[in-house]
C-alpha cells in the first residue's frame, strides 16, 4: 500500500476520501470516549483528577507515535530523496509539537494535585519529553531557516533521525531510572493494570487521537503537495 501511495497523484486520490473518513471517525471516537470518561466513577486514590488521564495519556502516546512517523518519513526522504516522504515529515512536525505540548501541560496540571509540584527538573520522564518537544521545534526552526529545499531536506532528515534515539529513552525512562512519574499501566508486560472502567475510555480516546492525527496528517501532506505545485507554477510563470 505504501509504495502505491508514493505516487503523488495516487496519494491525492486516496487522501481525498481517507482524510474526511478518519476525521469523522475521530469525532465519533472522541464523543464516545468523553461519554465514558464523564460516566466513570472517581478513582479511589486520585479522585476526580483521574479525568486528566484520558487526555494526558493519549497525547503522550501520540507525541511518541508522531515522532516515529516523522523519523520514518525522514528516512525515506533522506535515502530515496522522495518528495512525498519529505512532505510527510514536514507535515508531521507541527502536529507532533502540538500533541507534545498538550502532554507536557496536561501532565503538569495532573502533577500538581498528585505530586504537589507543577514540574520536577531532573525527572527522567519529564525531561525526556521536554527534549522531544525541543526536537520537534528544532526540526521546524531548521526547516524554516534553510530556504534552499535541496539543503533543507537532508539537514532536517538527519536531525529527525538523530532524535529517534530519544523515543526509547522516553518510554523506558520510568523503568531505567527513579522517577516521580508512574510506570507503564497499559503498554506493559503482563497486560494493562487499569480496571476496565478506566481502560476502555482511555483506549477509545487513544484511538480518537490516532485517527485525528491521521486525518490532519493527510490534509497537511495534501497542503504540502499543493504548495510544491504552486511553487513550480510560479517558477514556470517567472521563466
Amino acid at each position, binding site marked *: 500500500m505504501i509504495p502505491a501511495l508514493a505516487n503523488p497523484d495516487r496519494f491525492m486520490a486516496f487522501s481525498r476520501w481517507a482524510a474526511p473518513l478518519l476525521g469523522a471517525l475521530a469525532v465519533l471516537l472522541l464523543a464516545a470516549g468523553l461519554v465514558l470518561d464523564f460516566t466513570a466513577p472517581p478513582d479511589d486514590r486520585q479522585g476526580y483528577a483521574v479525568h486528566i488521564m484520558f487526555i494526558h495519556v493519549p497525547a503522550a502516546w501520540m507525541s511518541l507515535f508522531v515522532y516515529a512517523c516523522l523519523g520514518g518519513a525522514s528516512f525515506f526522504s533522506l535515502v530515496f530523496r522522495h518528495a512525498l516522504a519529505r512532505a510527510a515529515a514536514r507535515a508531521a512536525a507541527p502536529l507532533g509539537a502540538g500533541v507534545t505540548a498538550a502532554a507536557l501541560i496536561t501532565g503538569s496540571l495532573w502533577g500538581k494535585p498528585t505530586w504537589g509540584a507543577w514540574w520536577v527538573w531532573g525527572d527522567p520522564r519529564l525531561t525526556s519529553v521536554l527534549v522531544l518537544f525541543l526536537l520537534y521545534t528544532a526540526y521546524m526552526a531548521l526547516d524554516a531557516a534553510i530556504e534552499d529545499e535541496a539543503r533543507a531536506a537532508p539537514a532536517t532528515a538527519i536531525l529527525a533521525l538523530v532524535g529517534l534515539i530519544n523515543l526509547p529513552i522516553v518510554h523506558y525512562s520510568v523503568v531505567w531510572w527513579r522517577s516521580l512519574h508512574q510506570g507503564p499501566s497499559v503498554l506493559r508486560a503482563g497486560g494493562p493494570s487499569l480496571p476496565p472502567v478506566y481502560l476502555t475510555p482511555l483506549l477509545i480516546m487513544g484511538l480518537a487521537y490516532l485517527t485525528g492525527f491521521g486525518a490532519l496528517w493527510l490534509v497537511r501532506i495534501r497542503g504540502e503537495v499543493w504548495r510544491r505545485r*504552486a511553487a513550480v507554477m510560479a517558477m514556470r510563470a517567472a521563466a
Partner: protein
Amino acid sequence: MSFDFDAGKYAPYVWGAYAVSALILGGLVADTLARARRWRRAARPDASTETAP
C-alpha cells in the same frame, strides 16, 4: 449511565487540562485546514503567481 461533571477540589486542574487540550487540538485543526485551503487555491491552474505566498 449518568454523567458526573463534578471535579471537586480538582476542578481547576481538570478543566484547565481540558481547556488547554481543546485549545491546542482546535488550533491544530484550524491551522491545518487554513494552510491546505491556501495552498490549494495557490496551486489552481488559473491562480496567478501573486497569490502564492
